[in-house]
């Protein structure tokens, strides 16, 4: 996955001019779809992500419902035109895994015991991808859930940190992900500081991991502030 030979940091700046602790530009909007119960659109660097939430609603097929709580389902999907090499429609193994960890990143904040025998369905569509789609997707999905009025004990904000040219850096973009040495996507439920997503690949020493982990958690908190502002704006008249 990781390759050598490309210089990713020059004079303390990254290829897109960012410092090591800087996020890419992020835009958020909610309530962008008519049919869905809640929706959000997030642009995060060159990522463009739409998320929708339906529910709580009846479960089909019936036999997967739970008698004492709601279930949460997530479908992460990439549009065929969202990557340079066209993606064949339908789930591949990568998107199945991301759907699973995204579900497990969001479920901890949902008050599922309030609406048994129902489902909260979350759909994430990647329209343009450039590294970090799972973090942007989780962030958008949390907004869509809030927009839908799903009873939640907290929001979820997500951000990654990684390692490029031997240094720990926040929020890798496409080229950095391709030629960097490690990536660590994290999701945080900020109120109780709960880590709900944690994945890693590449190579970190114990110390580098801790540094990257702290950085990613810091990124989550910045993302969280933007989420709150976005939600508040909706209720301003």
């Amino acid at each position: 996955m990781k390759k050598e030979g490309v210089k990713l940091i020059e004079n303390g700046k990254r290829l897109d001019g960012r410092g090591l602790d800087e996020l890419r530009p992020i835009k958020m909007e909610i309530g962008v779809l008519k049919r869905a119960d809640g929706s959000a659109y997030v642009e995060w660097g060159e990522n463009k992500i739409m998320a929708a939430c339906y529910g709580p609603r009846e479960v089909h097929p019936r036999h997967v419902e739970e008698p004492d709580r709601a279930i949460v389902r997530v479908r992460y999907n990439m549009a065929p035109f969202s990557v340079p090499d066209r993606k064949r429609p339908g789930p591949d193994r990568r998107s199945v895994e991301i759907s699973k960890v995204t579900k497990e990143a969001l479920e901890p904040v949902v008050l599922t015991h309030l609406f048994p025998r129902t489902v909260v369905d979350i759909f994430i569509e990647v329209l343009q991808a450039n590294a970090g789609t799972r973090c942007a997707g989780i962030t958008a999905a949390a907004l869509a859930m809030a927009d839908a009025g799903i009873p939640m004990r907290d929001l979820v904000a997500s951000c990654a940190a990684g390692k490029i040219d031997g240094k720990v850096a926040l929020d890798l973009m496409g080229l950095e992900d391709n030629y960097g040495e490690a990536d660590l996507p994290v999701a945080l439920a900020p109120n109780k500081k709960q880590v709900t997503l944690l994945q890693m690949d590449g190579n970190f020493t114990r110390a580098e991991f801790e540094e990257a982990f702290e950085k990613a958690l810091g990124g989550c908190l910045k993302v969280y502030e933007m989420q709150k502002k976005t939600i508040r704006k909706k209720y301003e008249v």
Partner: protein
Amino acid sequence: MLEIIADIKRDYIKRIVESGKRLDGRGPDDYREIKIERDLYKTAEGSALVSIGGTQVIAGVKMILGEPFPDMPNQGVLTTSAELIPMASPTFEAGPPKPPAIEVARVVDRGIRESGAIDTEKLCIVEGEKVWVVFLDLHVLDYDGNLFDASTLASISALLSAKMPKLEDDRVIYDERKDPLPVKEKPISTTYAKIGGTVVLDPSLEEEQVLDARLTLATVESGDLCAMQKGGSGAFTKEEVLNTIDRGIEKAKELRKLLKV
């Protein structure tokens, strides 16, 4: 109980439409608001997001190298797909495309293909061996009725916005795009719904749910017809068909102006 409400609603919509009005106040030949945004996604060779009222459809164009069909050795290939993703409606399900998605893709494809919209001969690189394959992917984000017209409009807009990637020794360089995709015709689709005895343009979701029959026609700039598709469990009379076609040919002229930006 739910069914009784559905029946009442059905009757209500029918009565309104038959009285020459519509739920949202439109006239029988009015579209809802139409918006076209072009070239939104850098990863695509071309793209457009079209909304008609609450309906939102993205068309994305991707190009790869491939082989021509044996019976058309000097022509590029067009492949149209549509996904009615579950985001777009509580009634859409994940999984392989179901008949409605396949119908939309095939009707859009027919309009583009039969009108000769793409100059496929210009997509030939080596006759009989290597041509450009154009993938036209329709991604329905929000479904509020009349997918046919929104999809055709998004498709032709995306094709018009598309730039061909650079070719270097048989490698496609997606980062460098220059020449526009050769588009030589602009098919326009207009869709009518028969509700009770009345035929109205651009059915909303609520109108689609109660329609008896649907007629979609695609026309080219000359006003000629290039594709047509009846849908729904009801029927048209001969006169309704002819009359609807006349209305559609006229309306397409208006719609075509939206493509000139």
